[in-house]
């Protein structure tokens, strides 16, 4: 029996409702039922039904409502949920492209970071989104969102995944296992990359970059990619480059800059 029909059997008077797209549950309305046919909306106040009816409404929500709606959400979240749902179809191609290589435990992180990237590319501020992702996943989440926004999923992880698969033909489990090992190191430690964020002071940024370059040199790696998103961070990186180069001997082998981002590949020549 349809949700709509089961409401009728409980005794909810929906005789004037032609169809239902939205059910609102609200204890502050004055009557048991409000109907808005222009929006196919039914608003009910369970407090005005008797105890048996309330129990039946709960059962209906639990057994059928949740399945049919997919979620039962606080009305305060409606705006953000609608925004996300409008963006999701455009993200689907990227989700499909990356999901095979990303560990299952990070798939929700991938979806969130692709959403953040889409918002950033549309010119929106994403600091709040990044903070929420960091709150859930910690520094690893912040790193992943930075890597995603800077294009590392396409430019680095995907080619690496393809390369490992081609090296292990017929053995996708080994290929994936090797990939995950490298992936985890990069996402957790960002060994070859520094993202300068707005809360990082210039002295701190210099010390982080110089420290990482020196550590990389000890490990035989003579480059570091420097990223900044947003005008403020772009200017900050441009202003600290001379000091970094002076302290490490690095040269800016590649530099891309516009009003929204900066990328600098620093390389330290062999002496």
């Amino acid at each position: 029996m349809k949700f709509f029909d089961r409401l009728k059997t409980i005794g909810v008077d929906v005789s004037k409702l032609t169809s239902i797209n939205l059910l609102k549950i609200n204890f502050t309305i004055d009557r048991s039922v409000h109907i808005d046919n222009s929006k196919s909306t039914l608003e009910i106040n369970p407090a005005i039904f008797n105890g048996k009816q309330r129990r039946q409404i709960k059962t209906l929500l639990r057994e059928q409502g949740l399945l049919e709606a997919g979620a039962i959400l606080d009305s305060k979240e409606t705006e953000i949920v609608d925004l996300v749902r409008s963006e999701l179809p455009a993200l689907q191609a990227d989700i499909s492209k990356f999901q095979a290589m990303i560990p299952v435990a990070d798939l929700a992180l991938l979806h969130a970071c692709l959403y953040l990237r889409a918002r950033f590319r549309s010119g929106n501020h994403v600091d709040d989104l990044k903070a929420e992702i960091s709150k859930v996943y910690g520094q690893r989440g912040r790193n992943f969102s930075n890597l995603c926004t800077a294009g590392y999923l396409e430019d680095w992880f995907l080619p690496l995944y393809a390369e490992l698969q081609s090296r292990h033909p017929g053995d996708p489990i080994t290929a994936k296992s090797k990939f995950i090992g490298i992936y985890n190191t990069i996402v957790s430690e960002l060994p070859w990359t520094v993202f300068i964020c707005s809360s990082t002071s210039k002295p701190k940024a210099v010390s982080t970059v110089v420290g990482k370059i020196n550590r990389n040199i000890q490990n035989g790696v003579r480059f570091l990619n420097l990223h900044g998103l947003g005008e403020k961070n772009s200017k900050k990186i441009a202003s600290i480059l001379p000091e970094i180069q002076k302290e490490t001997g690095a040269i800016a082998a590649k530099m891309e800059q516009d009003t929204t981002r900066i990328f600098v590949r620093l390389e330290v020549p062999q002496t």
Partner: protein
Amino acid sequence: MRITFDESARDFILDTFGKTVRDGYIVEKSDPRQRVVTPRGEEIPIDEFAGIRKGSAVFVKTDIVSIIEAAEAMG
């Protein structure tokens, strides 16, 4: 079809799924010492409760990661 609830109906929704609130966190009604957690193991302060999504009645927090999962569950 969509289903929403406003703040006045929050306890009703929690009760519908056998939960209640103790010390500011969502807990099992049958065992209030047992806090409800998300699939990532996070406890849920009541002021971060955004709702419930399908899939064994998963509790949703207000962060963007959880909201995206809920939006995907809505199809």
